[in-house]
């Protein structure tokens, strides 16, 4: 029997928050989850991000066994962790590993906003620090894709101190003379933007990504006394203010990163 028009499968079309138009989901997926009408960059899960960024089959995951242990016995924390583990298939908000981009060796880390808003607690902080340490001690470059609401409230002061911890590891990288590239994706805010994400050697950002010290939640509580620019708190605003090097469309990430990796390659690398 021929289906009538109203029996369209739920996921055949996706509404684009950028232009409000319906996008054919298959086309959207083929286009790296970028709207073919307006160029809006949709959320990308960490695993997909790794697949579309690295050379095929080159990824090897690191530190996969780390998991949070609720040090403060914080209300609802364990439930939220369990819920997001189930929903995302991840153990926490950060996936770390090694791989290649156009043949260049990279240590890569990707934050996933679907796991507790990409927030940084002990596990995220530890994985970032380990990746930085590994990069400082070995050959290769570091690439981190950021997406985060900030420090993870549920681990209290320990989370806040992950900001310092990752900046300490970043200082190790500087001393070792190893390159660190960060790609800001929607949204990169608060404790992550105010720690390791804003102190990379080169900072790229996806078009339209929210990039701000005060995320939406904080802003709602703060009285706005000044006129906000039209592009306030976007990647484009940060570019204009000199905090970001380059806005790069998702489809160009591999190409631009490869150019940077070529610049920072060492003699010891096979390529």
């Amino acid at each position: 029997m021929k289906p009538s028009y109203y029996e369209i499968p739920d996921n055949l079309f996706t509404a684009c928050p950028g232009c409000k138009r319906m996008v054919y989901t298959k086309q959207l997926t083929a286009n790296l989850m970028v709207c073919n009408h307006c160029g809006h960059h949709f959320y990308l899960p960490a695993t997909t991000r790794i697949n579309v960024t690295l050379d095929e089959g080159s990824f090897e995951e690191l530190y996969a066994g780390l998991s949070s242990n609720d040090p403060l016995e914080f209300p609802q924390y364990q439930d939220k962790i369990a819920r997001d583990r189930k929903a995302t298939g991840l153990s926490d908000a950060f996936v770390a590993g090694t791989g290649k981009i156009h043949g260049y060796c990279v240590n890569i880390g990707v934050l996933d906003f679907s796991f507790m808003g990409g927030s940084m607690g002990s596990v995220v902080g530890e994985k970032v620090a380990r990746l930085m340490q590994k990069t400082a001690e070995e050959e290769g470059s570091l690439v981190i894709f950021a997406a985060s609401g900030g420090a993870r409230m549920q681990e209290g002061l320990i989370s806040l101190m992950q900001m310092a911890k990752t900046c300490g590891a970043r200082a190790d990288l500087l001393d070792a003379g190893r390159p660190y590239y960060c790609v800001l994706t929607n949204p990169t805010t608060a404790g992550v933007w105010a720690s390791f994400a804003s102190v990379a050697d080169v900072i790229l950002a996806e078009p339209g990504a929210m990039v701000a010290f005060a995320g939406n939640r904080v802003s709602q509580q703060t009285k706005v006394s000044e006129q906000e620019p039209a592009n306030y708190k976007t990647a484009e605003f940060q570019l204009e203010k000199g905090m970001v090097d380059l806005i790069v469309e998702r489809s160009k990430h591999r190409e631009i990163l490869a150019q940077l990796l070529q610049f920072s390659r060492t003699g010891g690398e096979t390529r």
Partner: protein
Amino acid sequence: MSSNEEAGVRLDDKLIQTPRGKEVVLARHPKRPYTLDYAARLFESYLELHGDRVIGDSKAIISGVAQFEGLPVAFAGHQKGRTTQERVARNFGASHPEGYRKAVRIMKFAALLHNPTICFIDTPAAACDVAAESRGIATAIATSMVEMFRIPSPIVAVVIGEGGSGGAIGLSVADRILMLQHSVYSVIPPEGCANILWRDPEKRGEAAEALKLTAQDAFEQNLIDEVITEPRGGAHLDYDATAASVGEAILRHLAELREVDQNELVTIRRERFRKIGSFNS
């Protein structure tokens, strides 16, 4: 009108309902000693310096050079105001990027001369208005932390009031972190936490409990080195006695740090933070 109301702050009836909420009230007490009150009591002399050498100055973070127990030291600290006018001028202790850049500049200068730095932490948060975002508040805080990890002379930080999230950690990358008994140090203010957890800012007392944000909590989690006892009733009741205890503690820690090889100092500082975290592996 009570003196608290004159000072523009009401006693928070929701916070004082829980033990940790009470600590928040004390940490925010409008008569609590601020950085300049310690500078006047701890230092034989001090000279405040100004400017980040990029765009301007911040009145919410003060910094300069001083003589402390006969030792040349640098200092940096958040500064709140006493009068309404001064509170506004100092942006309630919420610094714009200039404050962090100025503090780091002066710390680096101190390190050139092998002099230590003392940081006083007392901020609700860093500034997050259009001006702060436009001039790179996040980048300034992160850069401050990275640079503090590279300063080859001792740094002692004392949380004297509110250790407010990013605004506090941006000046707290230290070899020793001390907290006054009734100060707090938190990833988020209890009001914000209550909003997120229960969509109800009224539950800030409960949120303070959940966050475990007191000096004692931080000490029990091994995140700080020492809790400095305050005069009975709180630091605001006796500035001189509080300053004396703070001075004694700083001096003791600086004496220990002077024994550490300068080249190892930075490594030990990084290791200290590197170890922080609670996870299963």
